[in-house]
């Protein structure tokens, strides 16, 4: 059974005068995500990927179509908090997500809202901080941490609510390369070890490569989807929609254009080196 299921979702934002914008931010998206999957949602700014993210935990409700989380419709108001407990959303700016002045107290914020008994909150906070590798920083002030560390604390804050799925809306956009690596390896670990469904929204191709499945969006619609291999081999289609491919794929594609025969498009540097070795033999 699908854990998340979007059925023909249409959504447009209203402006200040409460008039619906003519252009749909999300325009008929259908998407199914299974439990334990790692899905990357890829696209330009304004392609509707953040809007999709907010649909997944009932922050936004579709104008038409439905969003089902574990079988529950997000438009059912009684279920709103159940859904938010199951699907945690991590936002782009780590500074604006941390609400307490001490790391562990911030992580406790979610479980406190759920009315969990103190002893269990303590256990959950320790579990979440250990899972993201920030346990040693539990008594630090958030503003003294680096961007990557802050974002990991934000992930711990969601994790402490024991969600089944974490949706991350460009979590690495404001981070330096080190911070990006920290966050991504944390996500991969959570996905593999704790079987948590991850929906990673990004516009970095190199991050999308890590996912089980890549969904590419453009102007509110799904352009293409499949495994990273399948998606990034469609270099022409992606280029047409002004989307990049990973550098290694780009190189391989150019070589193809020059008449070199390549069986499998490489997605990262390692695969690229292997591919070049093969070709040069």
């Amino acid at each position, binding site marked *: 059974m699908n854990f998340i299921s979007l059925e023909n979702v249409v959504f447009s934002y209203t402006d200040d005068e409460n008039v619906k914008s003519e252009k749909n931010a999300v325009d008929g998206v259908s998407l199914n995500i299974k439990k334990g999957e790692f899905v990357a949602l890829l696209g330009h700014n304004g392609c509707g990927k953040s809007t999709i993210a907010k649909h997944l935990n009932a922050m936004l409700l579709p104008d038409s179509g439905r969003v089902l989380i574990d079988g529950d419709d997000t438009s059912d108001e009684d279920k709103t*908090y159940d859904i938010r407990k199951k699907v945690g959303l991590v936002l782009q700016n780590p500074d*604006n997500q941390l*609400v*307490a*002045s001490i790391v562990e107290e911030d992580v406790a914020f979610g479980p406190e809202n759920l009315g*969990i008994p103190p002893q269990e909150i303590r256990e959950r906070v320790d579990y979440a901080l250990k899972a993201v590798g920030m346990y040693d920083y539990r*008594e630090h002030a958030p503003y003294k941490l680096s961007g990557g560390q802050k974002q990991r604390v934000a992930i711990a*804050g969601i994790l402490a609510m024991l969600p089944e799925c974490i949706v991350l809306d460009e979590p690495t956009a404001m981070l330096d390369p080190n911070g990006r690596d920290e966050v991504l390896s944390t996500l991969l670990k959570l996905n593999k070890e704790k079987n948590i469904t991850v929906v990673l929204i990004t516009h970095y191709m190199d991050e999308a490569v890590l996912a089980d499945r890549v969904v590419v969006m453009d102007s509110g619609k799904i352009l293409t989807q499949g495994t990273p291999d399948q998606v990034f081999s469609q270099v022409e289609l992606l280029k047409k929609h002004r989307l990049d491919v990973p550098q290694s794929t780009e190189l391989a594609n150019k070589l193809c254009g020059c008449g070199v025969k390549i069986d499998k498009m490489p997605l990262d540097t390692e695969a690229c080196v292997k591919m070049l070795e093969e070709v040069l033999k």
Partner: protein
Amino acid sequence: MVRDVAFGQYFPGKSLIHKLDPRAKILLLIGFLVIIFCTFNYFSLLLVTLFTALMILSSGVPAKFYFKSLKVIIFILVITSVLNLFYGTGTPIWQWGIIKLTVNGINRAVFVTIRIICLILASSCLTFTTSPTELTDAIERLMKPLNKIHFPVHEIAMMMSLALRFVPTLLEETDKIMSAQKARGADMESGNIIKRVKALMPVLIPLFVSAFRRAYEIATAMECRCYRGGSGRTKMKSIHMSKRDAFSFIALAAIICGVILCNIFIPAVI
């Protein structure tokens, strides 16, 4: 630059004062502040000064941070003590025009200076040893009876803790905006006071705009984490009074008795 302000910071630790119930600490501080201003002779003044020193030493926070918190008010301190120095009553021991110096004036100046120093040090001791969450939690609990008259206690406590959380973030942002405006040729360090205040406008406007945008995002993030007001919330760190707190109240009571006894048996000097 603006980030050097030590007042209101929290230093995690395991000292006796750290372990006291934050509610007890707030009540003790209020009691102590009152007693500071009930000192009328040097013996009682010495008593409260010693008590303040004891507090600082047992807090385990490096003394330099206490000095830092004093640095902020040094201007106020100098002004009030100088004013008191020359406004004493009694026979002048030195006079120059309308300016006269009396024994009473000197006493007043000494008292006011030491009282303010003790006041700041004692308050710093509270904020240094209590995390903002504990502090707002304690205020929430102390104000709980007001809930009966529909006073939004939880909301106010939440606003306070959020405000405290974002003080360093906003200070950092102010720094950034100032640098950005300076890079565009804004002059903020010269001219008279009116000019300088005017020069601050290009800093304040972007700061306010971004603060509102931040507030909106924080609200979203809080909603994502199932925040829905105070009802049904639990706390990870539940606070409760213990023997330690009783002991600290006894210590305060001893100081109060000491000061009162001094006031009775030793003549007041101001």
